[in-house]
């Protein structure tokens, strides 16, 4: 029987030849992302910045200029209008109002009242009003979650593999996460709690991918005792190529419908996930593997004696 393969079975692509190109491209993209993070910065959602978000549905197609003009003269600072879904659905976002936490409540009431008076028939479908103390706390927790996750990964991979693997995986992870943050900056998507959930999921996903390649490297280290590390890493990547790409494609396919049908809340989440899957997959090959090569060039080969002897000699020999 014959099934569709993503790549042929016996590839011999010398990935490590492109190790500098891969690392430099990644570093440039990540540095650009960090610059974008500070300037122009992220579009923080109500979760993290406080303020108001009101979702409305107008009776006919929404009259944006009129809405903008009307809400602009309420003196509430920056008011963003965003269309999503149909032409009747509008998301109104108002920046955080000065004053204590109740100021957001009052402002939300003013906007709702104003809409009811000036645009009769408008249906308020959802309201979010978040005060400063809550948003500060949510932001702190979100950042703590990201930091803890990176530390936990460093610990876990170092525990399961040698430290070179752990460090390699975490450096790659940091590069992946910075690029994802850059993606938020470039697209202007809202950075909120859901975004943190997306980044955490991407981190999990990216690590899974690294584990597949690293597992094979570790296995091959035991099997091919004489092979140079560079050659061995290339072999391992080629051997697992169908896995790396296959698992990514499966998750990619599962996420696509969310990006299409998921509605305002999940669409952005899904797009970030799709971006993250591509980044996470490519970084397994082009970033995590080269870093392992640099970190382990002389060290990993020495450690072989304390491992158990090769459990299975490959039946078909080198290069399968």
């Amino acid at each position, binding site marked *: 029987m014959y099934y569709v393969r993503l790549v042929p079975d016996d590839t011999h692509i010398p990935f490590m030849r492109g190790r500098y190109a891969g690392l430099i491209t990644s570093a440039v993209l990540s540095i650009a992302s960090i610059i974008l993070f500070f300037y122009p910065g992220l579009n923080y959602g109500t979760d993290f910045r406080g303020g108001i978000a009101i979702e409305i549905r107008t009776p006919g197609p929404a009259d944006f200029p009129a809405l903008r003009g009307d809400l602009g003269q309420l003196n509430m600072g920056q008011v963003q209008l965003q269309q999503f879904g149909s032409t009747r659905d509008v998301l109104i976002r108002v920046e955080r109002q000065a004053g204590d936490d109740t100021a957001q409540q009052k402002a939300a009431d003013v906007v709702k009242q104003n809409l009811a008076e000036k645009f009769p028939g408008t*249906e308020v479908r959802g309201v979010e*009003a978040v005060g400063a103390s809550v948003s500060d706390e949510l932001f702190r927790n979100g950042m703590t979650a990201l930091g803890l996750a990176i530390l936990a990964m460093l610990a876990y991979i170092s525990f399961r593999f040698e430290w070179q693997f752990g460090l390699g995986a975490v450096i790659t992870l940091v590069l992946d996460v910075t690029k994802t943050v850059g993606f938020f900056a470039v697209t202007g998507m809202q950075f909120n709690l859901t975004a943190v959930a997306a980044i955490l999921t991407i981190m999990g996903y990216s690590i*899974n991918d690294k584990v597949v390649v690293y597992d094979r490297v570790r296995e091959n280290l035991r099997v091919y005792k004489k092979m140079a590390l560079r050659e061995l890493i290339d072999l391992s990547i080629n051997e697992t190529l169908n896995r790396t790409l296959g698992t990514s494609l499966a998750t990619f396919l599962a996420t696509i*419908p969310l990006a299409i*049908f998921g509605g305002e809340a999940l669409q952005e989440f899904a797009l970030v996930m799709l971006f993250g899957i591509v980044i996470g997959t490519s970084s397994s090959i082009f970033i995590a593997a080269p870093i392992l090569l640099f970190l382990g060039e002389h060290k990993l080969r020495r450690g072989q004696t304390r491992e158990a002897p090769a459990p299975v000699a490959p039946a*078909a020999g080198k290069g399968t």
Partner: protein
Amino acid sequence: MLYFSKWKIWGIIAVCVAAILFTIPNFLSKATLSGLPGWVPQRQINLGLDLRGGSYLLLEIDTAAVIRDRLDTATDAARTALRTANIGYTELAGADRSVTVHLRDAGQADAALTALGDIGSRTAAGQPEFKVDSAADGKITLTLTDASLTDRIGKAVEQSIEIVRRRIDETGVNEPQIARQGADRILVQLPGVQDPDRIKRLLGQTAKMTFRLLDPNGDAVGGKAPPGSEILQGYARAGTNGAAPRYVVRRKVEVDGADLTDARAATNSQSAEWVVSFEFNSSGARRFAQVTQQNVGRPFAIVLDDKVLSAPVIREPITGGRGQISGNFTAQSANDLAVLLRAGALPAPLQVIEERSVGPDLGADSIRAGILSCLVGLVLVATYMIIGYGIFGLFADLAVIVNLFMTLAALSLLQATLTLPGIAGILLMLGMSVDANILINERIREETRRGRTPFAAMEAGFKRAFSTILDSNLTTLIKMIILFLLGSGTVKGFAVTISLGIIISLFTATVLVRLMMVTWLRRRRPAMLPV
């Protein structure tokens, strides 16, 4: 690894059937469910407010007010204690977190300390409420300890939850959820409430009602009040178009709102105005009768949260323990006040610091979008698996469907809340679950190409892939636990569904798929594995 004993096979099948059984209630209406016999599982998944529509309010208790209240009463108690003990003092005041007093004669410090020793209560742990410091110049400071503050705020929060619950129950909201969050916050979830304005208004008032006498000696306009009295605002009368009147009101509370047993909105038979009629309990009625008897012809004030609702003149003693408050009410505001008085006063003001409301339409749209995405995602992933791995891909697809049922069953059993991000989690979990099978199938394929027999290749495939699968699942699980602990609201739902799905996939993607593959292998005995 390839051998399954009889009981193990039946065990696996039983788990799958049970999962489907426990999922069924979610497809039936509540009414149909209650008509079924008792052995049928009844638990349904809790839908989050973002899916079923409703309001989520986070309230914060004004801890400064709690402390201020305590210091006020402590200051009064200190004054009484020092006077009783005949100790001269100046500058008795409560501020920040402590009460301070200067003794005229520093030599009386010991006597003063004894007199002041009784004003504090004890914390739950039996520690004194105040830390007492005395300086050589006769200055004594009583400071609330951290433990007693935590105690007091905790009590205030517990009391507030009770009052909040009563107020919300009065509005007829179904299944409200009210819970303490952190040290000084209360989380209120109101399913089905799209516009929580009325509830916010009801919760935004302390509703501390007092009946006090007006002070004839003060000058309300000039803003001068004699000691023991204060100037309070009233409400502008409708139609007068003027400023709100001001009253000079004695601080002494004659009768407290806590003594009310009932309050109802009603219309006055003569003026057709909306009023709130109330009824005192026996001790309140006695006090009220006494006060009105002694003060016929004088005005008294009904004060709600430091504003004068009305200040009628007492025409005759009121001995029945019943009365009416007229205060320029509408039907709505009279009803609201009646609700507040029935439910009782909050120990301290509450502020809404976070609100998230979702209309039922939007929630229904989200459910539709979620189900559609899941179905399309399932079809895409399933097709990909069959194209890539044939019959083994089909086995993986069956396992994913079982996984979906088991996740829904687990959510129903645990009574966990399914949110919109939770639906996204289910979808992602579909993708991650087949990842395990891709790893297994690729490994089997590799072993087959190395010339292994079908049985040996399959054995090696499961064995070798397992540590990779375990690693990747555990790393994701760690992240989801972090997200669950630090995330809030609907995002927690995402962590819950992914975590459940991952744990379940260890069973479905490895054990269940292995059973299917082995059974197939035994029946067909192919010379080569179809991977």
